[in-house]
């Protein structure tokens, strides 16, 4: 019951594959929640140095009813600066424990993941790519995703920013290995909200980031 409640809480909060801006300013905290067609996760991280963040991650693989809890470290490998754009390359890794929930016959097992993310954006355009390898106690798994986005209008700091985005992901082990997810991003001050839908799997997509 406790595990189910934790997984449900995770789903309600939204939660997180490491996503937009996984490293903050020094001394900054970030809460990232994301729910996609595969899992629902929550990552809370702290940035002790502008090239590193450390956090705690809870992820619920919904179809398999496996719950992961562990720590995650993210490194900003390289940031490309220009007057009107910014590009980033991140590497991340996590380690913890995965176990079955809701009568899933799986004892607590050592689990972990590692991945790479790259993004480039201006105030008008956005592109990103992410690849992740994981072992959630049941053997290797993999995913990769790419995203493009455009802002129909350009606002200044504090305005409500709106982005229209399209994400393509590949998960070789799934019945539908490749899917497309259109989504809308709303961004204002320290809050970023994304809402979308994956038609091929009939699954909603939601992401919420709060930085403080």
């Amino acid at each position: 019951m406790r595990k189910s409640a934790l997984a449900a809480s995770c789903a309600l909060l939204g939660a997180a594959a490491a996503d937009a801006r996984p490293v903050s300013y020094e001394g900054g905290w970030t809460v990232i929640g994301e729910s996609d067609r595969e899992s629902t996760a929550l990552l809370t991280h702290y940035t002790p140095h502008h090239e590193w963040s450390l956090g705690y991650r809870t992820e619920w693989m919904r179809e398999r009813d496996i719950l992961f809890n562990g720590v995650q470290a993210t490194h900003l490998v390289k940031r490309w600066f220009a007057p009107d754009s910014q590009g980033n390359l991140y590497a991340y890794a996590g380690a913890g424990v995965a176990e079955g929930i809701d009568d899933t016959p799986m004892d607590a097992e050592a689990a972990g993941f590692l991945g790479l993310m790259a993004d480039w954006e201006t105030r008008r355009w956005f592109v990103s790519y992410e690849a992740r390898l994981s072992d959630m106690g049941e053997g290797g798994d993999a995913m990769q995703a790419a995203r493009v986005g455009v802002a129909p209008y350009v606002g200044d700091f504090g305005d409500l920013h709106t982005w229209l985005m399209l994400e393509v992901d590949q998960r070789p082990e799934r019945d539908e290995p490749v899917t497309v997810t259109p989504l809308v991003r709303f961004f204002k001050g320290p809050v970023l909200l994304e809402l979308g839908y994956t038609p091929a799997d009939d699954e909603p997509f939601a992401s919420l980031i709060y930085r403080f």
Partner: protein
Amino acid sequence: MIRIFITASASALAIAIAGLSAAEAQHAGHQAGHEGDEHAHEGETLAPTLHADIEAALREGGSLVVAEVNGMVCDFCATAMTKTFGRRDEVGAVHVDLDTKTLQLVIREGRTLDDAAIADLVTRSGYETVAIRRGTGA
């Protein structure tokens, strides 16, 4: 399957990194004329206009510092700057103008924050200082 996936991932990542480097080269030093729109188009640099909070702090006797910063493209960037500089006792007011790509600071009367310290704080925020100007002509 995993081997194919890794190969495809490495190829995609290489393309992404090549794109990032090309974009950096394309944007470096690129400036164009402004046509009077409310917001800057990509590549444009507008003359900074002072935010109301900055003007109010200046009326109280502070001194103006304007820093040109590379890479500020979203509200998270601006939030990082305002949080980092807002914590400093020397800073009476802080504002980020994404259109002009500037960080505007008012240093409290009788306090100092030198260029090296400002550049270091910009770096700790995750960004890059291009130039720092001081005084009413900033």
